[in-house]
């Protein structure tokens, strides 16, 4: 038990929290970008614009079917090779945003098509334009349906930030590795802390989503 408290000394705990800060920062920025980008791409996929939608669909399919780790490598090592120099935070944000946007696009597309079937015609026959119907009628309803899958996607994103240890993003998991790398007896306490910290954030998020979904359902 003593080792446990040594391991989670104030110095180490502070270091873990700093990592946690980076994890949250990267997650929040990526969630914001991927949500906007994903919704946009999902609508393009749904609306089926000639020429554009099939291409977007194809690119989304490619990205969805690659391991995130590979996209991280591309973003950190590949993009610089073609002239875009990124620091490790930006590279992670780009990789996460692109990957999760492709996932979210699918959620948005299926969310819209679940709602749109009858509603769109009704709205159009009432004199709304396509864009108006989409914005005022379809999207708000679809969004309600999409909240649970969206939130679990966001939780995935937060968990996935840990993969960026491989490009040395100074986030939570990497900081824990640095600590137990210097004293192997701290390994178990560090993994307990990791599990705890990730669980608290993600579980809180999933509880919040259930509450919101319930409120909106009425």
């Amino acid at each position, binding site marked *: 038990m003593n080792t446990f408290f040594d391991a989670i000394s104030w*110095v*180490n705990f502070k*270091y873990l929290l*700093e990592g946690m800060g980076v994890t949250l920062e990267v997650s929040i920025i990526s969630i914001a970008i991927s949500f906007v980008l994903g919704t946009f791409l999902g609508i393009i996929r749904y609306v089926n614009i000639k*020429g554009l939608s*099939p*291409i977007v669909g*194809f690119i989304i399919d490619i990205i969805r079917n690659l391991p995130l780790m590979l996209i991280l490598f591309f973003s*950190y*090592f590949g993009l*610089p*090779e*073609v*002239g*875009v*120099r*990124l*620091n490790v935070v930006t590279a992670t944000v780009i990789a996460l945003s692109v990957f999760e946007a492709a996932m979210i696009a699918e959620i948005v597309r299926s969310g819209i098509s679940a709602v749109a079937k009858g509603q769109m015609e009704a709205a159009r026959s009432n004199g709304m334009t396509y864009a108006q119907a989409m914005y005022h009628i379809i999207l708000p309803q679809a969004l309600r349906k999409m909240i649970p899958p969206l939130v679990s996607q966001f939780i995935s994103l937060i968990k996935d930030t840990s993969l960026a240890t*491989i*490009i*040395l993003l*100074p986030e939570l998991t990497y900081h824990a*590795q*640095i*600590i*137990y*790398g*210097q*004293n*192997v007896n701290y*390994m178990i306490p560090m993994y307990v802390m990791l599990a705890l910290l990730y669980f608290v954030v993600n579980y809180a998020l999933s509880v919040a989503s259930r509450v919101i979904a319930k409120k909106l359902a009425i």
Partner: protein
Amino acid sequence: MQKRILKFLLPVVFLLTAVLAGCGKSVASQDILTNASQTNTIIWGVKADTNLFGLMNVKKNKIEGFDVDVAKALTKQILGPSGKAKFVQVTSDTRMPLLKAGNIDAIIATMTITPERKKQVDFSDIYFKAGGSLLVKKGSKIKSVKDLKKGTKVIVVQGSTYGDNIKKAAPDTQVLQLADYAQAFTALKSGQADALSTDNGILYGMSIQDKDYVVVGGTYTNEPYGIAINKGQKPFLHTVNSALAKIKENGTYDKIAQKWFGDVPGFDVKEVK
């Protein structure tokens, strides 16, 4: 349908390639020396998980070690006392792509000069003479590379020279490659392999951290460390070399070497220069 997708896809791919190729050369080909004196900063790629050379000090959230101190001394020598050294964390695996991409100006991260690597990057003069060795648990049956027979497992780090070194010295042993030294050492302690092989300096750093692990068998390869710099950066390379010669001459180098390796048992500071 398929054809239609292709018809639209091809121009997009061409366009992307053209755009990317167009801006492709700008980053890594800038003159680093000019850039460094303008910004008064040199960006060094250093290890953060390697005791004695470059290790994260959790308390200060700063990387400390021999490589870091040499980099600082070189920066002062090149840019003057107000010059700033910026440090980016690298591993053996990530350092080359990062240098070639221009994310860092130079690598000073326990990097051995090899003919293979010389094709890709330029190296400074030798700044540290290391040699390949083995780290094992105290009391292990493995006493040297000769004991690495079939059925034994050796951990090396991805991107280091030891994937090849072990293959040559002990072809029958199984090689496990891990991402960085922190992971590699932890995996050894977890019993994932019988030995860990890399440069003796790094191994001594590990055995200081955990006395249950010892360096055995002397050295079986020579690993002279150099500072890696992108090709086409001759002015910067020459500046680094003359700065290196200066700090070796004026005693700064000896002070740094003494600071980090003076107390390391089994290690002779005079041999590394």
